[in-house]
């Protein structure tokens, strides 16, 4: 093996094999993996209505081992719990705001009555600190959708206020066309953690003041930057009011530059695994609740893209890469036809980094549970003729989690 071959072989080994833990096939790993997908939000029946309860709190989220951030979360999970209903169900969601910030919930892709759309000052007043709002709508259309906060959207969504909303139907057309054995939901996001921290602190400070002013009956359009009409705004400017976006009130700050990328609230090496067996078919619901495009690529397979924004495609597309833009949902079908451990990741490789360091971000894997024992052993280093590299290291295999390549 010459030097060039050595480097190629070494690189392949590290990128292809060394990214996932050795105990992938252990029952406890599979069990723990279930917690890496959104939990179902339970409901109670009240007449014709399915009633759900959501609340928002400020919590701490561990994106990757030893890396925590403050987040805004529905029911203290990121993403929020999955709401799963049948098409035509009457849905009632009690939303309680346990923070000192304003919030709403927008039901992304759902044909809600316009007063239920969750856009502050357009369809409703914001849900103020300590207050509750009840959303009511009929679950339609069928498909993969999501919900998210629509107040201070840039900050609040990055902070974790999003969750999946799945509208099922009994005669599911995808199930008919591709009888699948199990399904997964993956919610993507991207986070500029420095922006989050600084803006969240600033917003908390401002809201404490504004709430106090509201409580003492001193609503001030200029202080709150809220006007009833363009004419009122123009008049205020003529009288000396400076809008908050001008450089005499705000430095020309850069827009957020995400440096952490998550799937279901986790970055590699904490991202979930998609388990499959040979001959099985799985459905994966992909939701982009973040601000970045994700060019998702599956190694070793094509998949079928079967739904776009929840809408079943008349002709499923066979492909191995798709572009999941912000606000978009796709459903894909993966058939278990090529046994192995296959990387599933963003091919814009800036998004498979943690704080700029590869590997990280939304790197994850499709794992065949029935991979024979002998194929699970990654090439021992001595067989790779890598000389004395592993001598004295107490191991004869490469490590399985790489944090720096």
């Amino acid at each position, binding site marked *: 093996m010459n030097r060039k071959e050595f480097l190629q072989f070494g690189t392949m080994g590290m990128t292809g094999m060394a990214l996932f833990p050795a105990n992938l096939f252990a029952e406890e790993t599979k069990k723990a993996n279930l917690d890496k997908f959104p939990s179902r939000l339970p409901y109670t029946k009240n007449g014709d209505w399915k009633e759900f309860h959501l609340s928002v709190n400020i919590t*701490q989220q561990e994106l990757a081992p030893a890396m925590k951030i403050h987040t805004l979360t529905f029911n203290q999970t990121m993403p929020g719990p999955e709401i799963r209903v049948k098409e035509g169900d009457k849905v009632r969601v009690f939303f309680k705001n346990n923070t000192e910030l304003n919030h709403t919930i927008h039901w992304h892709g759902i044909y809600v009555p316009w007063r239920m759309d969750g856009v502050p000052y357009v369809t409703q007043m914001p849900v103020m600190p300590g207050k509750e709002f009840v959303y009511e709508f009929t679950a339609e259309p069928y498909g993969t959708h999501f919900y998210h906060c629509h107040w201070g959207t840039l900050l609040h969504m990055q902070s974790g206020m999003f969750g999946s909303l799945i509208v099922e139907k009994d005669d599911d057309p995808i199930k008919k066309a591709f009888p699948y054995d199990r399904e997964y939901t993956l919610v993507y996001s991207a986070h500029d953690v420095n922006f989050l921290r600084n803006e969240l602190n600033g917003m908390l400070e401002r809201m404490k003041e504004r709430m106090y002013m509201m409580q003492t009956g001193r609503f001030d359009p*200029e202080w709150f930057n809220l006007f009833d009409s363009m004419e009122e705004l123009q008049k205020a400017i003529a009288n000396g009011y400076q809008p908050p976006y001008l450089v005499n009130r705000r430095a020309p700050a850069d827009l957020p530059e995400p440096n952490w990328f998550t799937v279901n609230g986790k970055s590699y090496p904490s991202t979930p695994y998609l388990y499959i067996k040979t001959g099985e078919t799985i459905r994966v619901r992909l939701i982009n609740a973040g601000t970045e495009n994700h060019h998702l690529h599956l190694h070793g397979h094509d998949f079928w893209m079967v739904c776009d924004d929840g809408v079943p495609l008349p002709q499923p597309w066979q492909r191995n890469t798709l572009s999941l833009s912000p606000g978009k949902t796709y459903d894909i079908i993966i058939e278990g036809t090529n046994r192995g451990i296959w990387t599933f990741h963003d091919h814009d490789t800036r998004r498979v980094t943690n704080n700029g360091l590869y590997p990280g971000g939304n790197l994850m894997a499709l794992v065949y549970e029935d991979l024979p024992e002998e194929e699970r052993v990654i090439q021992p280093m001595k067989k790779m003729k890598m000389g004395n590299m592993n001598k004295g290291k107490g191991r004869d295999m490469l490590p399985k989690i790489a944090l720096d390549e």
Partner: protein
Amino acid sequence: MKTFKYILTAVFLGATLLAQSQVLPEIELGAKAVVSGNINMDDAGAASAVADFSDSQILLGFRQKLYSNWRGQMVFGMQFPDADSDLGQVFFNHVFVQVENQKNIFKLGRSTTQTIINEFPTLRDDDALYFTYALNPFSVGANTQDNQYGNVLEYTHIFDQRYWFTIHAENYADLSNPTSFKLNGLGGSFLYIVPETQVWNRNILQRAGFSYNSYLTDRPGYTGYAQALKEMLGALTFNVHPDPVNFVDLRIQGIYNIGFSEIDSLNTYEEYVRSPSVYFYSSVRYLRRKLERPKFQTSAGFGYRSFSQVDASNQWIGIFNMFYRLGENFDFGFQYRYQHNKGQSGLLFGNAAHRFQLTLVYTIDHVFNSQFDDRNSLLNLEHGYMK
């Protein structure tokens, strides 16, 4: 040993260069330009006018997380002192290194001393120096910086976010022995401080505490710690009207200089600072905020100082000022100060002095390359400290 040191340095240097991975720290830039036109008048009616830019300064701080998740920081600061201060054109008021975590702070280097435990709304920090600071007994009074800054060694432990217990030792500037850097000050303080992010909506008490300072002087006729000059400080700040628009607070600080009982005159500055005395300063401040920012501030302060061993001698001071914000970071202001010195203090400082000041102040404080949160951010205070 010298060779070993050289090798160790070379090894670390090489490792850093090889990895190309030096962590770019947070960089904090602070700057303040205080420029005023002063008109001074004494009790005889003699007047003088000066352009004054003292107390203007630049601070540059670098801060990063350590492997243990503690934070390490270094700060360099330079200040333009009074023209007749004997400190030259530029005085390095901050050159220190600090290591801290949520509850502990170690600080080493040139920085502010624990000679004041409250803050007062005056144009410059030293405008009421003789009433607000425990004065440095090693100073000859040529400048104010001798009382405000020193080479310090401090440890602070913070209990329950608001209780600050500090022990400290200092090397105060000693002009009689300028090349000596031995520790000549010792003390400790215990303060209750409401974090700035929570100040406006806390009823009544904003700050309270006390401090004990001692200065290891060469008091004639005494030995050991009996030679030390000892001072006790107490401070209170009340939120009279905590409100985000119209905010009023009342601040007070009292100092008891136990002093040297054998000093019964104020013929020199040294006698002035070593003579037993009791003094205080108090201010009331009104802050008007608009669009979530300070817009206008006015305050009035009064201070008094008496000397128990010196007959019929005392001092008092009154300061009134107002500041108007012209734009972010930029203020226009006016300040009037009257100081009256009675008895022997009048012989030292003159009987009375008026000072009128018109000023423009530009202040900035910004962190570049932000990486982690401050101890007193609302997230860290109210939603769990993030290491």
